[in-house]
């Protein structure tokens, strides 16, 4: 996943999601028995079978993208990660609250900017943000929704301690793994699955389609025509684009398949131009319309923004949502929750120091060896400093960079990410995990119970992104 990121913790005891001080948690009891009773040979066999099966599914992925590049297959761990109903309800409420606040924030900054006028969020931070799109000023989106699909990255440090690490409000990816992982588990371990009351995830594509239809332009007369706009088969997430389009039964279009005439968007079909009402776009703002944004973009469609502004087509996500998932804006999400909803945040932010603030910068420079410092606008773990892992020379070099451009950086304490039992070469061992649930917001908010669990497969490694030895697990939410 391109928006993956590296995470580190101090060498503190991590919270084990399977075993507490009083032994195995009830939700993991059946899995514990299964792990104990299954002879090691069978486990080895099953793992081989899993790998084979997953390779086959994976090859389907790879075929979507390119002839079978094995590096693109992300390792799959067969031990599921389990959340009980109570835990999920907490997360679900917290995610709903967070996405409502982010949407209210986006609507506000593109209209009256009350939160800026109230002095709750610095105006400079928003209006000069790369993700801020002046073109969106005073534009009313159907049902006031901006962030139709959000992927919220969560980490856990204790029984009730969940933190939001990052909000992905532009074009979050990874949901196809959530669906394929479950498919693999049901096929490989039907017995184990049957011993649990698993909340199903397979309805995600239907939920997504209904969400997209529910935000069709108000003037859309009949059943809305929804398409998925992809940058094309060379994009790293192309398999997911074609997978989702297939599952939803909608056309997978490229920029050149669309044309705009008199501010109405059509796709070119063999039966002539066909009007398009909703575009689930997996292309960044910068590239959707060469007339409005980057003129050299070849993956976009000329005139799309005008059609959008005229209210003749819905883009999901809306243009300009990037300002809400900027790392420098992230510290203000709790403020947004209080400001717009009058509620206290259910899910906590990781304490974050904005190096642009003088007092924060001082603290960060003093505590550099303990902190993780990231570029405010970076992603994929580029240009970041992991304090506890850095040499003295690296620390002092980074300090100089910080002093030179403090506003470009944020810093966070290293968190002790929770662990889940995972199959590794030596047997079953705890490995660190995170979780990305996907939140759908149309007329209503829907969250498929579960998400994408990423796991750091290397011992001691705290990096879950796939490019650095991360794998995935099926995420089980138990119904109760």
């Amino acid at each position: 996943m391109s928006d993956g990121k590296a995470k580190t913790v101090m060498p503190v005891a991590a919270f084990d999601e399977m075993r507490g001080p009083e032994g195995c948690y009830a939700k993991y009891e059946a899995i514990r028995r299964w792990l104990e009773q299954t002879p090691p040979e069978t486990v080895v066999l099953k793992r081989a079978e899993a790998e084979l099966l997953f390779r086959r599914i994976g090859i389907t992925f790879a075929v979507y993208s390119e002839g079978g590049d094995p590096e693109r297959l992300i390792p799959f761990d067969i031990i599921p990660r389990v959340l009980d109903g109570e835990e999920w309800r907490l997360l679900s409420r917290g995610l709903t609250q967070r996405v409502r606040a982010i949407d209210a924030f986006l609507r506000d900054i593109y209209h009256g900017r009350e939160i800026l006028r109230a002095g709750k969020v610095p105006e400079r931070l928003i209006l000069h943000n790369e993700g801020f799109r002046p073109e969106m000023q005073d534009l009313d989106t159907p049902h006031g929704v901006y962030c139709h699909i959000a992927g919220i990255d969560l980490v856990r440090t204790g029984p009730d301690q969940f933190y939001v690490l990052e909000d992905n409000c532009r074009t979050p990816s990874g949901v196809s793994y959530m669906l394929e992982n479950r498919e693999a588990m049901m096929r490989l371990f039907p017995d184990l699955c049957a011993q649990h009351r698993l909340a199903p995830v397979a309805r995600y594509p239907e939920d997504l389609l209904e969400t997209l239809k529910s935000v069709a332009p108000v003037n859309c007369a009949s059943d809305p025509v929804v398409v998925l706009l992809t940058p094309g088969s060379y994009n790293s997430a192309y398999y997911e684009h074609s997978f989702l389009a297939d599952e939803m039964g909608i056309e997978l279009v490229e920029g050149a398949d669309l044309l705009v005439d008199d501010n109405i968007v059509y796709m070119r079909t063999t039966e002539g131009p066909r009007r398009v009402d909703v575009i689930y776009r997996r292309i960044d703002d910068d590239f959707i319309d060469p007339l409005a944004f980057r003129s050299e973009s070849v993956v976009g469609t000329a005139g799309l923004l005008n059609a959008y502004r005229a209210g003749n087509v819905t883009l999901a996500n809306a243009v300009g949502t990037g300002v809400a998932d900027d790392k420098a804006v992230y510290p203000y999400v709790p403020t947004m929750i209080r400001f717009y909803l009058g509620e206290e945040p259910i899910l906590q932010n990781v304490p974050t120091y904005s190096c642009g603030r003088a007092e924060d910068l001082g603290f960060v420079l003093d505590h550099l060896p303990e902190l993780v410092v990231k570029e405010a606008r970076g992603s994929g773990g580029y240009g970041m400093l992991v304090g506890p892992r850095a040499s003295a020379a690296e620390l002092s070099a980074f300090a100089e960079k910080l002093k030179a451009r403090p506003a470009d950086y944020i810093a966070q304490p290293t968190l002790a990410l929770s662990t889940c039992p995972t199959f590794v070469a030596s047997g079953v061992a705890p490995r660190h995990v995170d979780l990305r649930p996907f939140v759908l917001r149309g007329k209503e908010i829907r969250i498929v119970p579960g998400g994408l669990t990423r796991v750091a497969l290397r011992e001691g490694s705290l990096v879950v992104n796939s490019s650095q030895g991360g794998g995935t697990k099926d995420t089980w939410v138990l119904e109760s």
Partner: protein
Amino acid sequence: MLSRTADSLYWLARYVERAENTARTVLVGHWMASMARSLGNPGNEWESTLIASGCAPGYRAKYAKVTPASVVDYLVRDPENLSSLISCIETARRNARAVRTALTADMWNALNETCLQMRQKLASGFTPDQVSEMLEWVKQRSQLFNGSYANTMLRNDAYYFTRLGTYIERADNTARILDVKYHVLLPQDAGVGGALDYYQWQSILRSVSGLRSYHWVYHERLQHWRVAELLILRSEMPRSLVSCYDEIARTLDLLAEAYAGKRGECHRLAGEVFARLRYGRIQDIFQQGLHEFLTEFINRTMILGDEIASLYLI
């Protein structure tokens, strides 16, 4: 369906068919040249192969002399030649990749495997002796692909566009193969109706897998005007121009049916060309001149391609 999807399916099928026919054309050159050599009368067989395949200008820009080795190299493995075997197969695969989900698994596997093996074969090099074996292999792979789509695709517009691609390309290519005979010169001392002339017509027939068919249909020794009749006017012959146009006209009708009766210039043109072939006589074609007839036919097929594109593909 999306025009881009239809376009990719159409060109995918065209390029697979073109690969097969390029292989067939090279085989004609191969046979004619070895026949001429063994009769002690080598001529311009390879040059005529180049002209008929439409690759002569590109070849001349690259090579000063026509030699068997360089012609084969240019037509088989040169990536700069957009009609070379390897280019056709790579282009077909690129089109297939772009519409991966519109293909059946069998189609994709047939094509993908062909491309991967072809790359391997070319990388490991081949001797002149292995050329015809490889050309036969390309024919087989193309037939595997055609069979896989005929047997696995849903009978809907996607299938119709794929089929159109196959038959438009085949019509064009059969005309070109027949035209090889026009360009190949008979040496002064080898007259029309002589041994060399005879073997040249035979090579043409063999290249379209029509030698046996000829005997089944006519029960007599090869006559040049009958060879032309078989490849142009006989509906029993599956690669003949009339057979191709029969398929094209019928497939266009099926498309019009699928699309609420909508028709265009391509329907009229295909019907007209088909009717001329259906009711044409070989003596009239020879009166006009076989080469002139084939040139006009190739042009009209090109126009038909443009008309199909403007109605459906852009």
